Protein backbone atom coordinates (compact mmCIF):
# COMPACT_ATOMS: atom_id res chain seq x y z
CA UNK A 1 0.00 0.00 0.00
CA UNK A 2 1.16 3.47 -0.69
CA UNK A 3 1.44 5.98 2.06
CA UNK A 4 -0.82 8.95 1.77
CA UNK A 5 1.79 11.59 1.74
CA UNK A 6 0.08 14.89 1.10
CA UNK A 7 0.06 17.33 3.98
CA UNK A 8 -2.84 16.61 6.30
CA UNK A 9 -5.95 18.66 6.65
CA UNK A 10 -5.33 21.32 4.10
CA UNK A 11 -9.08 21.41 3.79
CA UNK A 12 -9.68 22.24 7.41
CA UNK A 13 -7.42 25.20 7.14
CA UNK A 14 -9.22 26.39 4.04
CA UNK A 15 -12.64 25.70 5.46
CA UNK A 16 -12.21 27.32 8.84
CA UNK A 17 -11.72 30.68 7.23
CA UNK A 18 -14.74 30.16 5.03
CA UNK A 19 -17.95 32.04 5.43
CA UNK A 20 -20.97 30.14 4.15
CA UNK A 21 -21.08 31.20 0.53
CA UNK A 22 -17.37 31.68 0.09
CA UNK A 23 -17.29 28.57 -2.05
CA UNK A 24 -20.67 29.05 -3.64
CA UNK A 25 -19.46 29.81 -7.15
CA UNK A 26 -16.98 26.95 -7.11
CA UNK A 27 -19.64 24.57 -5.78
CA UNK A 28 -22.13 25.58 -8.46
CA UNK A 29 -19.46 25.03 -11.08
CA UNK A 30 -18.59 21.59 -9.73
CA UNK A 31 -22.25 20.59 -9.66
CA UNK A 32 -22.80 21.90 -13.19
CA UNK A 33 -19.81 19.92 -14.37
CA UNK A 34 -21.10 16.77 -12.76
CA UNK A 35 -24.60 17.18 -14.20
CA UNK A 36 -23.34 17.99 -17.68
CA UNK A 37 -21.12 14.89 -17.56
CA UNK A 38 -24.09 12.80 -16.44
CA UNK A 39 -26.24 14.16 -19.26
CA UNK A 40 -23.52 13.58 -21.85
CA UNK A 41 -23.18 9.95 -20.72
CA UNK A 42 -26.88 9.33 -21.11
CA UNK A 43 -26.67 8.84 -24.86
CA UNK A 44 -30.00 7.02 -25.07
CA UNK A 45 -31.88 10.01 -23.71
CA UNK A 46 -29.98 12.39 -25.97
CA UNK A 47 -30.81 10.34 -29.05
CA UNK A 48 -34.45 10.03 -28.02
CA UNK A 49 -34.52 13.72 -27.18
CA UNK A 50 -33.71 14.46 -30.82
CA UNK A 51 -35.41 11.50 -32.52
CA UNK A 52 -38.86 12.00 -30.98
CA UNK A 53 -39.24 15.67 -31.93
CA UNK A 54 -37.94 14.92 -35.43
CA UNK A 55 -40.40 12.06 -35.84
CA UNK A 56 -43.24 14.25 -34.62
CA UNK A 57 -42.16 16.95 -37.02
CA UNK A 58 -42.24 14.49 -39.92
CA UNK A 59 -45.67 13.25 -38.87
CA UNK A 60 -47.07 16.76 -38.44
CA UNK A 61 -45.63 18.14 -41.63
CA UNK A 62 -46.16 15.24 -44.01
CA UNK A 63 -49.21 13.52 -42.48
CA UNK A 64 -51.34 16.30 -40.94
CA UNK A 65 -49.62 19.19 -42.68
CA UNK A 66 -51.63 19.06 -45.88
CA UNK A 67 -54.92 19.25 -44.02
CA UNK A 68 -53.80 21.92 -41.58
CA UNK A 69 -52.13 24.02 -44.28
CA UNK A 70 -55.58 24.86 -45.62
CA UNK A 71 -56.35 26.80 -42.42
CA UNK A 72 -53.17 28.86 -42.45
CA UNK A 73 -52.70 32.01 -44.43
CA UNK A 74 -49.46 32.70 -46.19
CA UNK A 75 -46.77 30.70 -44.42
CA UNK A 76 -45.96 27.01 -44.95
CA UNK A 77 -46.99 24.56 -42.23
CA UNK A 78 -43.33 23.65 -41.66
CA UNK A 79 -42.56 27.27 -40.84
CA UNK A 80 -45.61 27.35 -38.61
CA UNK A 81 -44.89 24.17 -36.67
CA UNK A 82 -41.11 24.30 -36.11
CA UNK A 83 -41.26 26.54 -33.00
CA UNK A 84 -43.79 24.10 -31.50
CA UNK A 85 -41.48 21.18 -32.17
CA UNK A 86 -38.67 23.09 -30.45
CA UNK A 87 -40.82 23.39 -27.33
CA UNK A 88 -41.73 19.71 -27.42
CA UNK A 89 -38.04 18.98 -27.56
CA UNK A 90 -37.52 21.15 -24.46
CA UNK A 91 -40.33 19.20 -22.78
CA UNK A 92 -38.54 15.88 -23.36
CA UNK A 93 -35.37 17.38 -21.97
CA UNK A 94 -37.15 18.59 -18.85
CA UNK A 95 -38.79 15.20 -18.33
CA UNK A 96 -35.34 13.63 -18.28
CA UNK A 97 -34.18 16.19 -15.76
CA UNK A 98 -37.05 15.25 -13.46
CA UNK A 99 -35.86 11.64 -13.61
CA UNK A 100 -32.23 12.61 -13.01
CA UNK A 101 -33.15 14.69 -9.95
CA UNK A 102 -35.38 11.94 -8.62
CA UNK A 103 -32.56 9.42 -9.00
CA UNK A 104 -30.12 11.68 -7.20
CA UNK A 105 -32.50 12.25 -4.33
CA UNK A 106 -33.43 8.58 -4.02
CA UNK A 107 -29.82 7.38 -4.22
CA UNK A 108 -27.20 7.74 -1.56
CA UNK A 109 -25.27 10.51 -3.26
CA UNK A 110 -27.44 13.32 -1.95
CA UNK A 111 -26.62 12.19 1.58
CA UNK A 112 -22.97 12.53 0.78
CA UNK A 113 -23.50 16.03 -0.61
CA UNK A 114 -25.55 16.99 2.42
CA UNK A 115 -22.84 15.86 4.79
CA UNK A 116 -20.41 18.20 3.01
CA UNK A 117 -20.13 21.97 3.44
CA UNK A 118 -22.07 22.50 0.23
CA UNK A 119 -25.26 24.50 -0.06
CA UNK A 120 -27.94 21.97 -0.97
CA UNK A 121 -29.58 23.82 -3.84
CA UNK A 122 -26.34 24.09 -5.83
CA UNK A 123 -27.11 20.52 -6.89
CA UNK A 124 -30.45 21.64 -8.34
CA UNK A 125 -28.79 24.55 -10.14
CA UNK A 126 -26.37 22.03 -11.63
CA UNK A 127 -29.25 20.03 -13.05
CA UNK A 128 -30.96 23.08 -14.50
CA UNK A 129 -27.82 24.40 -16.17
CA UNK A 130 -27.04 20.95 -17.59
CA UNK A 131 -30.57 20.82 -18.94
CA UNK A 132 -30.12 24.16 -20.71
CA UNK A 133 -26.84 23.02 -22.25
CA UNK A 134 -28.41 19.77 -23.40
CA UNK A 135 -31.42 21.56 -24.87
CA UNK A 136 -29.29 23.99 -26.81
CA UNK A 137 -27.68 20.99 -28.48
CA UNK A 138 -30.87 19.02 -29.15
CA UNK A 139 -32.74 22.13 -30.29
CA UNK A 140 -29.91 22.96 -32.66
CA UNK A 141 -30.15 19.51 -34.22
CA UNK A 142 -33.94 19.71 -34.50
CA UNK A 143 -33.81 23.15 -36.14
CA UNK A 144 -31.12 21.82 -38.51
CA UNK A 145 -33.37 18.94 -39.55
CA UNK A 146 -36.25 21.38 -40.03
CA UNK A 147 -34.00 23.45 -42.26
CA UNK A 148 -33.24 20.38 -44.37
CA UNK A 149 -36.96 19.74 -44.67
CA UNK A 150 -37.49 23.25 -45.97
CA UNK A 151 -37.87 25.48 -42.88
CA UNK A 152 -36.82 28.96 -44.04
CA UNK A 153 -36.77 31.55 -41.25
CA UNK A 154 -36.25 35.14 -42.37
CA UNK A 155 -34.72 36.32 -39.10
CA UNK A 156 -31.93 38.83 -38.62
CA UNK A 157 -29.09 38.02 -36.22
CA UNK A 158 -30.79 40.04 -33.49
CA UNK A 159 -34.02 38.14 -34.05
CA UNK A 160 -32.19 34.82 -33.88
CA UNK A 161 -30.57 35.84 -30.61
CA UNK A 162 -33.95 36.90 -29.27
CA UNK A 163 -35.45 33.54 -30.25
CA UNK A 164 -32.59 31.62 -28.64
CA UNK A 165 -32.99 33.79 -25.54
CA UNK A 166 -36.68 33.04 -25.19
CA UNK A 167 -36.06 29.31 -25.79
CA UNK A 168 -33.44 29.31 -23.02
CA UNK A 169 -35.85 31.14 -20.71
CA UNK A 170 -38.55 28.58 -21.43
CA UNK A 171 -36.15 25.68 -20.86
CA UNK A 172 -35.08 27.21 -17.54
CA UNK A 173 -38.72 27.64 -16.52
CA UNK A 174 -39.92 24.13 -17.29
CA UNK A 175 -36.71 22.57 -16.02
CA UNK A 176 -37.27 24.21 -12.64
CA UNK A 177 -40.80 22.81 -12.71
CA UNK A 178 -39.37 19.40 -13.59
CA UNK A 179 -36.76 19.72 -10.84
CA UNK A 180 -39.51 20.39 -8.34
CA UNK A 181 -41.26 17.24 -9.55
CA UNK A 182 -38.00 15.30 -9.16
CA UNK A 183 -37.53 16.54 -5.61
CA UNK A 184 -41.12 15.85 -4.53
CA UNK A 185 -41.94 12.45 -6.01
CA UNK A 186 -40.78 9.23 -4.43
CA UNK A 187 -40.49 6.99 -7.47
CA UNK A 188 -39.38 6.98 -11.07
CA UNK A 189 -42.93 6.09 -12.15
CA UNK A 190 -44.37 9.11 -10.39
CA UNK A 191 -41.75 11.33 -12.01
CA UNK A 192 -42.64 9.98 -15.46
CA UNK A 193 -46.34 10.49 -14.86
CA UNK A 194 -45.91 14.03 -13.63
CA UNK A 195 -43.74 15.07 -16.54
CA UNK A 196 -46.24 13.62 -19.00
CA UNK A 197 -48.30 16.71 -18.28
CA UNK A 198 -45.43 18.87 -19.45
CA UNK A 199 -45.26 16.97 -22.71
CA UNK A 200 -48.99 17.25 -23.21
CA UNK A 201 -49.59 20.94 -22.52
CA UNK A 202 -47.96 22.22 -25.76
CA UNK A 203 -50.60 20.38 -27.81
CA UNK A 204 -53.33 22.61 -26.44
CA UNK A 205 -51.65 25.82 -27.57
CA UNK A 206 -50.91 27.54 -30.84
CA UNK A 207 -47.96 25.14 -31.32
CA UNK A 208 -49.50 22.85 -33.93
CA UNK A 209 -52.79 24.43 -34.99
CA UNK A 210 -54.16 27.93 -34.60
CA UNK A 211 -56.34 28.06 -31.45
CA UNK A 212 -59.17 29.71 -33.44
CA UNK A 213 -59.94 26.25 -34.82
CA UNK A 214 -60.50 24.77 -31.32
CA UNK A 215 -63.78 24.49 -29.35
CA UNK A 216 -64.34 27.49 -27.05
CA UNK A 217 -63.20 25.85 -23.80
CA UNK A 218 -59.91 24.53 -25.20
CA UNK A 219 -59.43 27.73 -27.10
CA UNK A 220 -59.68 29.75 -23.92
CA UNK A 221 -57.06 27.55 -22.31
CA UNK A 222 -54.84 27.56 -25.39
CA UNK A 223 -54.86 31.33 -25.66
CA UNK A 224 -54.06 31.93 -22.02
CA UNK A 225 -51.54 29.25 -21.18
CA UNK A 226 -47.81 30.09 -21.16
CA UNK A 227 -46.84 27.97 -24.17
CA UNK A 228 -48.79 30.15 -26.61
CA UNK A 229 -47.00 33.47 -26.00
CA UNK A 230 -43.65 31.66 -26.02
CA UNK A 231 -44.49 30.00 -29.34
CA UNK A 232 -45.84 33.22 -30.81
CA UNK A 233 -42.68 35.05 -29.78
CA UNK A 234 -40.37 32.49 -31.38
CA UNK A 235 -42.60 32.34 -34.45
CA UNK A 236 -42.71 36.09 -34.75
CA UNK A 237 -38.95 36.48 -34.38
CA UNK A 238 -38.06 33.70 -36.82
CA UNK A 239 -40.80 33.87 -39.44
CA UNK A 240 -42.07 37.43 -39.08
CA UNK A 241 -45.61 36.79 -37.80
CA UNK A 242 -47.36 39.37 -35.63
CA UNK A 243 -45.61 39.67 -32.20
CA UNK A 244 -48.01 41.91 -30.30
CA UNK A 245 -47.72 41.54 -26.53
CA UNK A 246 -46.42 37.95 -26.80
CA UNK A 247 -42.76 38.70 -25.92
CA UNK A 248 -43.73 40.51 -22.72
CA UNK A 249 -46.18 37.81 -21.72
CA UNK A 250 -43.64 35.11 -22.55
CA UNK A 251 -40.92 36.67 -20.41
CA UNK A 252 -43.32 37.22 -17.51
CA UNK A 253 -44.57 33.64 -17.65
CA UNK A 254 -41.06 32.16 -17.87
CA UNK A 255 -39.60 34.24 -15.08
CA UNK A 256 -42.69 33.58 -12.94
CA UNK A 257 -42.65 29.82 -13.45
CA UNK A 258 -38.90 29.60 -12.92
CA UNK A 259 -39.03 31.66 -9.72
CA UNK A 260 -41.96 29.85 -8.17
CA UNK A 261 -40.63 26.37 -8.85
CA UNK A 262 -37.03 27.21 -7.99
CA UNK A 263 -38.17 28.47 -4.59
CA UNK A 264 -40.49 25.50 -4.02
CA UNK A 265 -37.83 23.00 -5.09
CA UNK A 266 -35.22 24.68 -2.90
CA UNK A 267 -37.51 24.68 0.13
CA UNK A 268 -38.64 21.08 -0.23
CA UNK A 269 -35.10 19.88 -0.96
CA UNK A 270 -33.70 21.77 1.98
CA UNK A 271 -36.21 20.15 4.27
CA UNK A 272 -35.49 16.57 3.46
CA UNK A 273 -33.17 16.28 6.44
CA UNK A 274 -35.76 14.59 8.57
CA UNK A 275 -36.09 11.77 6.14
CA UNK A 276 -34.10 8.69 7.07
CA UNK A 277 -32.08 6.92 4.45
Amino acid at each position, binding site marked *: *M*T*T*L*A*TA*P*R*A*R*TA*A*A*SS*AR*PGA*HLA*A*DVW*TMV*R*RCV*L*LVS*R*DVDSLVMGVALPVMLMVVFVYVFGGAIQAGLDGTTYLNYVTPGIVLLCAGFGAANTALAVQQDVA*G*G*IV*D*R*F*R*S*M*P*VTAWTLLVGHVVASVVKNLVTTGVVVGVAYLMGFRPDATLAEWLGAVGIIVLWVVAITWAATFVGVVVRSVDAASAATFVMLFVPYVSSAFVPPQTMPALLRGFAEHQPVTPVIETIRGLLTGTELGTSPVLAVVWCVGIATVFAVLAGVVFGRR*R*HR*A*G
Partner: protein
Amino acid sequence: MNDSPAVEAEGLTHRYGSVGVLDGVDLTLHRGEVLALLGPNGAGKTTTVRILSTLLEPTGGRARVAGFDVVREARRVREVISVTGQSAAVDDKLTGRENLVTMARLAHLPRAEVRARVDELLDAFDLASAAGRRVGTYSGGMRRRLDLAAGLVARPRVLFLDEPSTGLDPRARQDLWDVVRDVVAQGTSLLLTTQYLEEADQLADRVAVLDGGRVVADGTPAALKARVGEAAVELDLATADDAARVGSALGLVPGPGVGEPGATTALRVPTDGTLAHVRDVLDRVDATGVVPRGWSVVSPTLDDVYLALTGHPTEHPTEQEDAA
Protein backbone atom coordinates in the same frame (compact mmCIF):
# COMPACT_ATOMS: atom_id res chain seq x y z
CA MET B 1 -13.22 24.83 20.70
CA ASN B 2 -10.30 22.82 19.38
CA ASP B 3 -9.94 21.05 22.67
CA SER B 4 -13.45 19.67 22.44
CA PRO B 5 -13.83 15.95 21.96
CA ALA B 6 -14.36 14.85 18.38
CA VAL B 7 -17.83 13.63 19.25
CA GLU B 8 -19.88 14.19 22.35
CA ALA B 9 -23.42 12.83 22.47
CA GLU B 10 -25.66 13.11 25.48
CA GLY B 11 -28.95 11.35 25.84
CA LEU B 12 -29.61 11.09 22.12
CA THR B 13 -33.05 9.77 21.36
CA HIS B 14 -34.66 9.07 18.05
CA ARG B 15 -37.96 7.72 16.91
CA TYR B 16 -39.20 7.07 13.41
CA GLY B 17 -42.89 7.83 13.71
CA SER B 18 -43.94 5.83 16.75
CA VAL B 19 -41.00 3.44 16.60
CA GLY B 20 -38.36 4.38 19.16
CA VAL B 21 -34.88 3.48 17.99
CA LEU B 22 -32.48 5.38 20.25
CA ASP B 23 -33.32 5.69 23.90
CA GLY B 24 -30.65 7.92 25.40
CA VAL B 25 -27.33 7.25 23.74
CA ASP B 26 -24.25 8.72 25.42
CA LEU B 27 -21.05 8.58 23.42
CA THR B 28 -17.69 10.29 23.48
CA LEU B 29 -15.05 10.07 20.82
CA HIS B 30 -11.82 11.67 21.97
CA ARG B 31 -9.60 13.47 19.54
CA GLY B 32 -7.36 11.17 17.53
CA GLU B 33 -9.21 8.13 18.78
CA VAL B 34 -10.93 5.28 16.95
CA LEU B 35 -14.25 4.19 18.40
CA ALA B 36 -16.06 1.12 17.09
CA LEU B 37 -19.81 1.05 17.52
CA LEU B 38 -21.07 -2.50 17.69
CA GLY B 39 -24.60 -3.77 17.81
CA PRO B 40 -27.00 -6.23 16.25
CA ASN B 41 -28.97 -5.40 13.11
CA GLY B 42 -31.50 -2.70 13.83
CA ALA B 43 -29.74 -1.55 17.00
CA GLY B 44 -29.58 2.02 15.68
CA LYS B 45 -25.98 2.27 14.55
CA THR B 46 -26.83 3.85 11.21
CA THR B 47 -29.33 6.14 12.90
CA THR B 48 -26.63 7.32 15.31
CA VAL B 49 -24.16 7.93 12.50
CA ARG B 50 -26.77 9.85 10.50
CA ILE B 51 -27.55 12.07 13.46
CA LEU B 52 -23.89 12.77 14.17
CA SER B 53 -23.21 13.55 10.51
CA THR B 54 -26.12 16.07 10.38
CA LEU B 55 -28.23 13.96 8.02
CA LEU B 56 -30.97 13.37 10.55
CA GLU B 57 -32.21 15.50 13.40
CA PRO B 58 -32.47 13.64 16.69
CA THR B 59 -35.82 13.57 18.46
CA GLY B 60 -34.07 14.46 21.71
CA GLY B 61 -30.73 14.88 23.41
CA ARG B 62 -27.80 16.75 22.00
CA ALA B 63 -24.63 16.03 20.15
CA ARG B 64 -21.57 18.05 19.32
CA VAL B 65 -18.95 17.25 16.73
CA ALA B 66 -15.62 19.04 17.15
CA GLY B 67 -17.46 21.32 19.52
CA PHE B 68 -20.25 22.22 17.07
CA ASP B 69 -23.86 21.34 17.68
CA VAL B 70 -25.07 18.92 15.01
CA VAL B 71 -28.44 20.65 14.72
CA ARG B 72 -27.74 24.34 15.25
CA GLU B 73 -24.27 24.44 13.72
CA ALA B 74 -24.72 21.76 11.08
CA ARG B 75 -22.77 23.73 8.52
CA ARG B 76 -19.71 24.01 10.78
CA VAL B 77 -19.95 20.31 11.49
CA ARG B 78 -19.99 19.55 7.79
CA GLU B 79 -16.78 21.46 7.34
CA VAL B 80 -14.90 19.06 9.56
CA ILE B 81 -16.52 15.69 8.93
CA SER B 82 -16.75 13.14 6.21
CA VAL B 83 -19.06 10.15 6.12
CA THR B 84 -19.33 6.98 4.11
CA GLY B 85 -22.71 5.43 4.68
CA GLN B 86 -23.91 1.91 4.44
CA SER B 87 -25.24 2.26 0.90
CA ALA B 88 -23.11 3.39 -2.02
CA ALA B 89 -22.97 7.09 -2.82
CA VAL B 90 -21.21 7.22 -6.16
CA ASP B 91 -22.31 8.08 -9.70
CA ASP B 92 -22.51 5.02 -11.93
CA LYS B 93 -22.31 7.05 -15.11
CA LEU B 94 -19.08 8.78 -14.12
CA THR B 95 -15.67 7.15 -14.03
CA GLY B 96 -13.96 6.35 -10.76
CA ARG B 97 -11.65 9.30 -11.17
CA GLU B 98 -14.45 11.73 -12.06
CA ASN B 99 -16.30 10.67 -8.92
CA LEU B 100 -13.31 11.35 -6.69
CA VAL B 101 -12.47 14.66 -8.37
CA THR B 102 -16.06 15.84 -7.87
CA MET B 103 -15.89 14.95 -4.17
CA ALA B 104 -12.47 16.54 -3.74
CA ARG B 105 -13.74 19.80 -5.21
CA LEU B 106 -16.91 19.83 -3.16
CA ALA B 107 -14.74 19.21 -0.10
CA HIS B 108 -12.89 22.40 -1.08
CA LEU B 109 -9.52 20.75 -1.33
CA PRO B 110 -7.07 23.27 -2.75
CA ARG B 111 -7.15 22.93 -6.53
CA ALA B 112 -3.48 22.09 -6.85
CA GLU B 113 -3.91 19.16 -4.47
CA VAL B 114 -6.93 17.53 -6.04
CA ARG B 115 -5.11 15.47 -8.61
CA ALA B 116 -2.41 14.17 -6.30
CA ARG B 117 -4.92 13.26 -3.62
CA VAL B 118 -7.19 11.45 -6.09
CA ASP B 119 -4.26 9.46 -7.50
CA GLU B 120 -3.14 8.58 -4.00
CA LEU B 121 -6.53 7.17 -3.10
CA LEU B 122 -6.97 5.32 -6.39
CA ASP B 123 -3.65 3.62 -5.67
CA ALA B 124 -4.39 2.93 -2.05
CA PHE B 125 -7.67 1.22 -2.90
CA ASP B 126 -6.23 -0.64 -5.87
CA LEU B 127 -8.46 1.18 -8.34
CA ALA B 128 -5.82 2.89 -10.46
CA SER B 129 -6.27 0.58 -13.44
CA ALA B 130 -10.07 1.01 -13.35
CA ALA B 131 -9.98 4.75 -12.74
CA GLY B 132 -10.98 5.64 -16.29
CA ARG B 133 -13.91 3.24 -16.41
CA ARG B 134 -17.50 4.03 -15.59
CA VAL B 135 -18.45 2.95 -12.10
CA GLY B 136 -21.46 1.13 -13.57
CA THR B 137 -18.99 -1.50 -14.82
CA TYR B 138 -17.34 -2.01 -11.40
CA SER B 139 -17.82 -5.08 -9.23
CA GLY B 140 -19.60 -4.65 -5.90
CA GLY B 141 -16.33 -4.58 -3.97
CA MET B 142 -14.79 -2.04 -6.33
CA ARG B 143 -17.79 0.25 -5.89
CA ARG B 144 -17.49 -0.06 -2.15
CA ARG B 145 -13.80 0.80 -2.31
CA LEU B 146 -14.50 3.84 -4.45
CA ASP B 147 -17.21 4.87 -2.03
CA LEU B 148 -14.75 4.66 0.86
CA ALA B 149 -12.13 6.56 -1.11
CA ALA B 150 -14.69 9.30 -1.76
CA GLY B 151 -15.24 9.59 1.99
CA LEU B 152 -11.52 9.90 2.67
CA VAL B 153 -10.72 12.41 -0.03
CA ALA B 154 -11.13 15.39 2.27
CA ARG B 155 -8.87 14.16 5.07
CA PRO B 156 -11.52 15.17 7.57
CA ARG B 157 -11.00 15.96 11.23
CA VAL B 158 -13.76 13.53 12.16
CA LEU B 159 -14.58 10.54 10.00
CA PHE B 160 -17.68 8.34 10.15
CA LEU B 161 -17.68 4.96 8.45
CA ASP B 162 -20.85 2.87 8.57
CA GLU B 163 -19.95 -0.79 8.14
CA PRO B 164 -17.01 0.06 5.93
CA SER B 165 -15.80 -3.45 5.19
CA THR B 166 -19.12 -5.08 4.35
CA GLY B 167 -18.78 -6.55 0.88
CA LEU B 168 -15.00 -6.41 0.78
CA ASP B 169 -12.78 -9.43 0.31
CA PRO B 170 -10.08 -10.06 2.95
CA ARG B 171 -7.40 -8.39 0.87
CA ALA B 172 -9.49 -5.28 0.26
CA ARG B 173 -10.33 -5.16 3.95
CA GLN B 174 -6.63 -5.12 4.78
CA ASP B 175 -6.13 -2.27 2.32
CA LEU B 176 -8.98 -0.38 3.94
CA TRP B 177 -7.49 -0.87 7.40
CA ASP B 178 -4.14 0.35 6.17
CA VAL B 179 -5.65 3.51 4.72
CA VAL B 180 -7.73 4.08 7.81
CA ARG B 181 -4.72 3.69 10.11
CA ASP B 182 -2.85 6.12 7.95
CA VAL B 183 -5.63 8.70 8.08
CA VAL B 184 -5.91 8.26 11.84
CA ALA B 185 -2.15 8.60 12.25
CA GLN B 186 -2.47 12.02 10.66
CA GLY B 187 -4.86 13.16 13.35
CA THR B 188 -8.33 12.17 12.16
CA SER B 189 -10.74 10.85 14.78
CA LEU B 190 -12.82 7.92 13.60
CA LEU B 191 -16.17 6.50 14.55
CA LEU B 192 -16.97 3.31 12.72
CA THR B 193 -19.72 0.77 12.98
CA THR B 194 -18.98 -2.81 12.22
CA GLN B 195 -20.24 -6.36 12.42
CA TYR B 196 -16.73 -7.75 12.22
CA LEU B 197 -15.34 -7.91 15.71
CA GLU B 198 -11.90 -8.52 14.30
CA GLU B 199 -12.16 -5.13 12.69
CA ALA B 200 -12.95 -3.52 16.02
CA ASP B 201 -10.05 -5.41 17.60
CA GLN B 202 -7.70 -4.31 14.82
CA LEU B 203 -8.65 -0.67 14.57
CA ALA B 204 -10.45 0.54 17.62
CA ASP B 205 -9.03 2.13 20.74
CA ARG B 206 -12.43 1.84 22.28
CA VAL B 207 -15.58 -0.15 21.65
CA ALA B 208 -19.16 0.84 22.44
CA VAL B 209 -21.89 -1.76 22.25
CA LEU B 210 -25.33 -0.47 21.29
CA ASP B 211 -28.34 -2.57 22.19
CA GLY B 212 -31.93 -1.74 22.90
CA GLY B 213 -31.32 1.90 22.00
CA ARG B 214 -28.60 2.43 24.59
CA VAL B 215 -24.89 1.98 24.97
CA VAL B 216 -24.66 -1.14 27.12
CA ALA B 217 -20.87 -1.27 27.32
CA ASP B 218 -18.04 1.07 26.55
CA GLY B 219 -14.34 0.48 26.99
CA THR B 220 -11.12 -0.72 25.44
CA PRO B 221 -11.33 -4.11 23.74
CA ALA B 222 -9.08 -5.52 26.49
CA ALA B 223 -11.22 -4.13 29.29
CA LEU B 224 -14.38 -5.51 27.72
CA LYS B 225 -12.80 -8.91 27.28
CA ALA B 226 -11.72 -8.89 30.89
CA ARG B 227 -15.37 -8.37 31.85
CA VAL B 228 -16.45 -11.68 30.38
CA GLY B 229 -13.61 -13.77 31.69
CA GLU B 230 -9.97 -14.42 31.75
CA ALA B 231 -7.54 -16.37 29.62
CA ALA B 232 -7.34 -20.14 30.10
CA VAL B 233 -5.34 -23.17 29.08
CA GLU B 234 -7.74 -25.58 27.43
CA LEU B 235 -6.85 -29.24 27.44
CA ASP B 236 -8.49 -31.81 25.21
CA LEU B 237 -8.14 -35.28 26.71
CA ALA B 238 -8.76 -38.72 25.22
CA THR B 239 -11.03 -40.13 27.90
CA ALA B 240 -13.11 -38.97 30.84
CA ASP B 241 -10.77 -40.98 33.00
CA ASP B 242 -7.74 -39.03 31.81
CA ALA B 243 -9.66 -35.83 32.39
CA ALA B 244 -10.43 -36.82 35.95
CA ARG B 245 -6.77 -37.62 36.65
CA VAL B 246 -5.44 -34.42 35.20
CA GLY B 247 -8.26 -32.47 36.79
CA SER B 248 -7.49 -33.68 40.26
CA ALA B 249 -3.77 -33.03 39.73
CA LEU B 250 -4.65 -29.45 38.87
CA GLY B 251 -7.38 -29.19 41.45
CA LEU B 252 -10.17 -28.93 38.87
CA VAL B 253 -13.36 -30.85 38.22
CA PRO B 254 -14.15 -31.67 34.63
CA GLY B 255 -17.71 -30.97 33.61
CA PRO B 256 -20.15 -28.61 31.99
CA GLY B 257 -18.80 -25.17 31.42
CA VAL B 258 -15.42 -26.54 30.60
CA GLY B 259 -14.67 -26.81 26.91
CA GLU B 260 -17.59 -28.02 24.81
CA PRO B 261 -20.89 -27.86 26.69
CA GLY B 262 -21.39 -31.16 28.46
CA ALA B 263 -17.98 -32.45 27.53
CA THR B 264 -16.26 -34.47 30.20
CA THR B 265 -12.98 -34.82 28.34
CA ALA B 266 -12.07 -31.14 28.22
CA LEU B 267 -10.50 -29.06 30.95
CA ARG B 268 -10.21 -25.34 31.26
CA VAL B 269 -7.45 -24.02 33.50
CA PRO B 270 -7.59 -20.32 34.26
CA THR B 271 -4.31 -18.54 33.65
CA ASP B 272 -2.93 -15.06 33.68
CA GLY B 273 -1.43 -15.91 30.30
CA THR B 274 2.21 -15.48 31.34
CA LEU B 275 4.81 -17.89 30.05
CA ALA B 276 5.76 -19.00 33.55
CA HIS B 277 2.21 -19.87 34.54
CA VAL B 278 1.40 -21.68 31.30
CA ARG B 279 4.62 -23.69 31.62
CA ASP B 280 3.76 -24.57 35.19
CA VAL B 281 0.33 -25.84 34.14
CA LEU B 282 1.80 -27.93 31.35
CA ASP B 283 4.49 -29.37 33.65
CA ARG B 284 1.84 -30.47 36.10
CA VAL B 285 -0.13 -32.13 33.28
CA ASP B 286 3.05 -33.83 32.13
CA ALA B 287 3.74 -35.13 35.62
CA THR B 288 0.48 -37.12 35.56
CA GLY B 289 1.77 -39.14 32.63
CA VAL B 290 -1.42 -38.42 30.64
CA VAL B 291 -0.91 -37.27 27.05
CA PRO B 292 -3.62 -34.79 26.00
CA ARG B 293 -4.96 -34.97 22.45
CA GLY B 294 -4.42 -31.24 22.16
CA TRP B 295 -4.13 -28.04 24.13
CA SER B 296 -4.30 -24.32 23.56
CA VAL B 297 -4.28 -21.03 25.36
CA VAL B 298 -7.50 -19.16 24.74
CA SER B 299 -8.44 -15.62 25.62
CA PRO B 300 -11.97 -14.31 25.45
CA THR B 301 -12.77 -12.72 22.10
CA LEU B 302 -14.90 -9.71 21.38
CA ASP B 303 -17.39 -12.28 20.10
CA ASP B 304 -17.71 -13.58 23.63
CA VAL B 305 -18.16 -10.03 24.90
CA TYR B 306 -20.75 -9.26 22.28
CA LEU B 307 -22.69 -12.42 22.96
CA ALA B 308 -22.61 -11.88 26.69
CA LEU B 309 -23.76 -8.27 26.40
CA THR B 310 -26.42 -8.47 23.75
CA GLY B 311 -27.55 -12.05 24.03
CA HIS B 312 -27.23 -12.37 20.26
CA PRO B 313 -24.34 -14.01 18.50
CA THR B 314 -22.64 -11.69 16.00
CA GLU B 315 -23.95 -12.00 12.55
CA HIS B 316 -21.10 -13.19 10.49
CA PRO B 317 -21.95 -11.61 7.18
CA THR B 318 -21.09 -14.04 4.44
CA GLU B 319 -18.04 -13.01 2.53
CA GLN B 320 -19.12 -11.51 -0.72
CA GLU B 321 -17.51 -13.03 -3.73
CA ASP B 322 -18.11 -10.03 -5.96
CA ALA B 323 -15.15 -8.04 -4.68
CA ALA B 324 -12.51 -7.80 -7.34
